[in-house]
């Protein structure tokens, strides 16, 4: 085993003893969790296990009561807000697909591009050829070139999920947090999503929260199981799904 400090130094994201409670309910209870650069990680756990709360804490939406949250071993995320964290290179996809429905697919991606985001910079922004190329590249990746002028409101559920992933790519994050990407997708879409995520994980770290065990198996990566706000088990999918505690808490139900 590595020493704690070594783990920290090597980590991209490092959580230690993080706790938070809402009106007496402990959503996270001394949670510790590490993501290494270039890693694709899956997280499972029953409802209320603290998965979304953990993401809230990483992305600055919620402040932990106690604990350490570090990005690249140097940046204390508990001191930053959402916009800062996003600019540091942490992207997040919500459980419910959240895209700008009154904008076209193209505009959605244009907004997400990792460019200066100040008030005046955006006021006077004009689309440069490089930006145009980049957007087209992403459209290609998420297989939506033919729908680029469609309003996002008119996309199917699965397409919205993909568009959102595309927007995250446009953000060029170092770490991508993906919350239930395949909920509501057809089997074919699910399979394609798995391919897409694995492709993305080649260049950056990805954390996927998912209920769909089939999908997780398809990803074939290290799995962390959360329950009642702390880590129950961690390891390969087979290791975790055979853990008696996991079966009792999650799978068995």
């Amino acid at each position, binding site marked *: 085993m590595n020493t704690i400090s070594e783990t920290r130094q090597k980590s991209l994201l490092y959580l230690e003893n993080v706790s938070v409670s809402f009106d007496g309910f402990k959503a996270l209870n001394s949670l510790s969790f590490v993501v290494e650069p270039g890693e694709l990680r899956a997280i499972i756990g029953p409802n209320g296990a603290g998965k979304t709360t953990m993401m809230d804490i990483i*992305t600055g*939406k919620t402040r932990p009561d106690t604990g350490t949250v570090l990005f690249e071993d140097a940046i204390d995320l508990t001191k930053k807000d*959402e*916009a800062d964290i*996003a*600019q540091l290179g942490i*992207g*997040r996809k*919500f459980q*419910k697909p*959240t*895209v*700008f*429905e*009154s*904008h076209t697919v193209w*505009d959605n991606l*244009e*907004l*997400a591009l*990792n460019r200066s*985001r*100040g*008030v005046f910079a*955006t*006021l*006077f*922004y*004009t689309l440069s050829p490089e930006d145009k190329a980049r957007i087209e590249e992403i459209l290609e990746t998420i297989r939506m070139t033919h729908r680029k002028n469609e*309003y996002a*409101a*008119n996309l199917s559920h699965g397409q919205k999920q993909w568009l959102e992933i595309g*927007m995250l790519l446009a*953000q060029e994050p170092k770490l991508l947090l993906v919350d239930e990407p395949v909920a509501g997708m057809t089997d074919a879409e699910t399979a394609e999503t798995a391919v897409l995520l694995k492709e993305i994980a080649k260049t950056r770290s990805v954390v996927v929260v998912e209920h769909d065990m089939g999908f997780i198996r398809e990803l074939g990566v290290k799995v962390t199981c959360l329950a009642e706000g702390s880590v129950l088990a961690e390891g390969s999918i087979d290791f975790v799904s055979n853990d008696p505690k996991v079966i009792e808490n999650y799978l068995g139900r």
Partner: protein
Amino acid sequence: MISGFVFRALEGRIVAAVGILLGIGILVPALNLLTPPDSALHIPTYAMSLFGKYLCYALLALALDLVWGYCGILSLGHGAFFALGGYAMGMYLMRQIGPRGVYGNPILPDFMVFLNYKELPWFWHGFDWFVFAMAMVIVVPGLLAFIFGWFAFRSRVNGVYLSIITQAMTYALLLAFFRNDMGFGGNNGLTDFKDILGFSVQADGTRAVLFFMSALMLSLCLILASAIVRSKFGKVLVGVRDAESRVRFLGFRVENIKLFTFVVSAMMAGIAGALFVPQVGIINPGEFAPANSIEVVVWTAVGGRGTLIGPIIGAILVNGGKSFFTGAFPEIWLFALGGLFIAVTLFLPKGIVGTIQHGFKARKALKAAADAEKGRGDAAAVAQAQAAE
């Protein structure tokens, strides 16, 4: 870069609207001044100053639409910015009276004389200078909006909470300006203006110029609003309205985006107020009344929020209707007005212009958007309910 910003604004509809506005701005005063009173084409001064007032209201509605229609901030306090701009102009006009007040005091306005003020309060200094006063017309509302927005957006006050505290803001200002001790003339406000830049405010020529200025400022603000809305910033703005957290997680500073828009909008409202005052001849705390601000929301909704032309049409239509009904059916006009609000929300939820625009878009788009709206609505209801526990 700047030229691109402006150029983008000049899209077909906006050009047409600006053309019409400027046309009215020149034609109406011309018909008023140049045709004999018995001519069929003559526009009486009465009608011109009335319409000038509507143009100011239209600008106010446009300002509100920028924050509400595009950014999703429902301000129930825009009347306050309008009134502050009006007061800044009123203070200039008061100082212009000079020794022609009833007491003949060269420095102090009449109301200060009979309330025993010995000297001009500090905040009245400088208002005898036109340029300073005009600067204050946008600085004061802008500053209030900046301070208010700085705190409110940073603390992430939103939705009805924000609406209610903007209402509290204008209500508090209403009470404050009512007080004689504030030095703004109490409930009587500022009135009995004589001239502006040396021209009598009552002269037809001055009224014509003020009318033209109203049309011009409305046009300029329309172009500015259009430039903002059509820039990338404008797209972010709509993003904030539709999915605030997504914008945040994309790395934008939502509070700055809101703050900028809120301040720009407050400044526009201030300009509207400043043009309003010399045309109606009075500014008093009644303009701060929360009901006035709610009415602005209604004009915007009637015309169509989230469109730039809509609020202008809404303000002119509702106020035109109000002028007509209060004269023609003084006993029952409130029924008509109340009925209109209900009818618009039920049958034209996107307002007049919004509904027309939608006619152009694909039918499918309409349906999908409605579904999405419904989905969001349910989510909101769930949130409400959970909060209710």
